[in-house]
């Protein structure tokens, strides 16, 4: 009985921890660059919650978009996925490479809005 309780307890703790890591972005301060083999720049500074509060973004799909057949799917979002699941390092056709997708998503929006960093070293801080 003791063993069962111990296993159940550690499992539930593990599940809670796993979900905390996946769903809460409180501790996110940089963009995940694990998909790059030999990154040349520091990961881009990005404090998820603070950014979205400042930018007034409520809709996850604003950044975590879903595209099908080259068209953006409304009312669908992809926040459970890694960007690199769709955007590989090379890119193909309409699918931008991972670097280009990151830059388009962040810098592209900043340029459109006239707010936020746009120069290399403003995000890739040494």
């Amino acid at each position, binding site marked *: 009985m003791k063993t069962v309780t111990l296993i159940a307890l550690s499992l539930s703790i593990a599940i809670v921890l796993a979900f905390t890591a996946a769903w809460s972005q409180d501790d996110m301060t940089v963009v995940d660059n694990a998909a790059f083999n*030999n990154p*040349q*720049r520091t990961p881009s500074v990005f404090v998820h919650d603070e950014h979205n509060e400042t930018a007034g973004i409520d809709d996850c799909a604003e950044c975590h978009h879903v595209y099908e057949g080259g068209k953006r799917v409304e009312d669908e979002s992809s926040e459970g996925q890694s960007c690199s699941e769709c955007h590989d390092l090379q890119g193909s056709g309409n699918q931008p*490479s991972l*670097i*280009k997708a990151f*830059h*388009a998503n962040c*810098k592209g929006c900043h*340029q459109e809005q*006239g707010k936020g960093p*746009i*120069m*290399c*070293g*403003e995000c890739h*801080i*040494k």
Partner: protein
Amino acid sequence: MHSFYNFVSGPLAWVAFILFFGGSIYRIVSMLKLVAEKERFIFSYMSWRYSLRSIIHWIIPFATVNWRRQPVLTVVTFAFHLCLLATPIFLLSHVVLWDEAFSISWWTLPDAVADIMTIIVILGAVYFLVRRVTQPEVKFVTSVSDFVILAIVAAPFITGFLAYHQWLSYPLVMCLHVLAGDIMLAAIPFTRLSHMLFSPFTRAYMGSEFGKVRHARDW
């Protein structure tokens, strides 16, 4: 600062590239027209064989007597010109911008290598500056414009180096870097930096005259 950055990397960059390509074509065409007008006989002895023979000797370090006579200058000038040309073309952050703007991209240098190549360009510029000031035979043919074009060439690399390392005020340095690049591109056809365009023609002419008229080597 962002609107200034967008200006120097947008409209002003277009102006710079148009001046660079348009100016280069204009300078080469008007040079050829001038030759055709005033010294048409040159075409009678221009030769591909002697032209290429001369160019090939002069673009290889130590392949000419003059390169061997001045070994330090030879090493510096080859390292300088190679890095000057290759670094901006194959720099990752430049290619990223080409890709964003026109969806074109190509092979890139690792940033650490580009960093060293940038230092080589800056040190080369310092060497040429010291040489102009201290060597009597160079000083004799030096005018103010020579220092100006040296500064025009060094500026994009100094600011690029500072921007990469994010020393001093990054946004300002970044803007100055793009501005310096625009100025350099636009200056190439209209200053002595035009040796970039004319040197193959000069070499071809010398090679042809030495080869076909004087039956001598020009290296």
